[in-house]
């Protein structure tokens, strides 16, 4: 879900840039030198997720999984998504450098929101956990497409219809992302639940090493 360079107006680009700088500052504050490695690794995982194509009818779509990243990382998802998008711009020319701010907000804001709204549900187990997992995929893609539509509509009121089409075209992706995110969370919680408690976990481990 990228907006290409050359489409948005100056105020929208500037607004996206300011929000991204603020979000990234908060995110960077939450990671110290010892936690850079896991965040960088998950940023790379997020990059790889966008290369995974899952079939949908005759075509295929690629995964986004920003909700999953957000629930794991919280505010640190901001710098992680920023870096992944910058790498996509450099390596594949998806998006671009000036529109990077808007693209980051579009994907990272829903991710952080998922962290606050859905984390309590995930720790419960049973059906609540499954619903929270599904919503983690569904809501994040829904909000991302909504933000994308909003940035188009704010640029030019003539884009309003196009913006509506963007949201509707993303509905099947929302459902698939929901299903995939739900299963992925079930898996992670079974195999290595401490990933979701990464901040405290990481600190304890390093503490042992210090002694």
């Amino acid at each position, binding site marked *: 879900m990228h907006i*290409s*360079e*050359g*489409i948005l107006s100056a105020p929208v*680009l500037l607004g996206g840039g300011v929000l991204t700088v603020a979000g*990234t500052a908060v995110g*960077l504050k939450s990671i110290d*030198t*010892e936690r*850079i*490695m*896991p*965040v*960088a*690794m*998950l*940023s*790379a995982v997020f*990059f*790889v997720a966008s*290369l*995974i194509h*899952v*079939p*949908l009818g005759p075509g295929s779509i690629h*995964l986004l999984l920003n909700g999953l990243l957000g629930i794991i990382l919280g505010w640190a998802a901001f*710098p*992680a998504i*920023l*870096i*992944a998008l910058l*790498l996509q*711009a*450099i*390596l*594949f*020319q998806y998006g*671009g*450098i*000036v*529109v990077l701010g808007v693209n980051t907000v579009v994907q990272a804001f829903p991710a952080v929101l998922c962290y606050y709204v859905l984390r309590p549900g995930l720790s419960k187990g049973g059906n609540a956990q499954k619903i929270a997992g599904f919503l983690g995929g569904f809501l994040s893609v829904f909000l991302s497409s909504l933000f994308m539509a909003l940035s188009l509509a704010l640029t030019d009121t*003539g884009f*309003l*219809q*196009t913006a509506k*089409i963007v949201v509707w075209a993303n509905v099947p992706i929302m459902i*698939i992302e929901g*299903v*995939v*995110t*739900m*299963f*992925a*969370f079930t*898996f*992670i919680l079974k195999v*290595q639940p401490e*990933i979701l408690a990464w901040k405290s976990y990481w600190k304890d*481990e390093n503490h042992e*090493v210090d002694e």
Partner: protein
Amino acid sequence: MIPEYFSYTDSFLHRADPRLKIVAAVSITVVIAMSRSYITGLCGLVLSFFLVGFARLDIGVVARRLLAVNIFTAFLWLTLPLTYGGETMEFLGFMTISREGVAVAALITLKANCIVLAFLALMSTSPVSSLGHALGQLGLPEKLCLLLLFSYRYIAVISQEFQRLSRAARIRGFTPKTNVHTYRTYAYLFAMTLVNSWNRSHRVQQAMMLRCFNGRFYTLHPERLTAVECVVFGVIMTGVFIMAFWEFWKLQG
């Protein structure tokens, strides 16, 4: 799987200081992205073609990248003339489309292609590792640069890990279709990749601590500006400033 097609070959632009290239790429992109006139867009396109020729990029790969960009602009071409409103004109004799919609779609296509070409010639001709160091020298926060360098380092590793898992699934008879089983399988493959990467980051972290990592990276290739580079980029930046002034002057008038 994660190719840096453009950083392998050699040209003046490939050898130029990445800091200069980043500054030039950002300035060109800012000016073109904010412009509203075809003349600025066309001037930018000429500059971009010049840069691509200068960087001696593989035209086939460049064309494929442009195709990817134009999928989105094609979407705009399909929707904007029908929905933009305003003044209408006849199209193919039987339907009316918005004249302004066509104009906006054309301008966006021009700007998007121009920016991608300039970006390809300037940014993609440097390996990400030297871009990371250059961004640090240009004032990007150190933690962000470390994130960029580490993340870039492990993209290929993680991608291979995912491919290994999906190859194993295919060998066991997994054929992707549009059903819940496929989505569950992909979710598990992805989650396994995430768990593996997580554990790998833990090991790398410990290895770095053992080697006294203090949060700084030192480059073995310090960049030095040469006189020729300064002149060439001076000319490019002058062109960019002229485009910016022209745009500003038109806005005033």
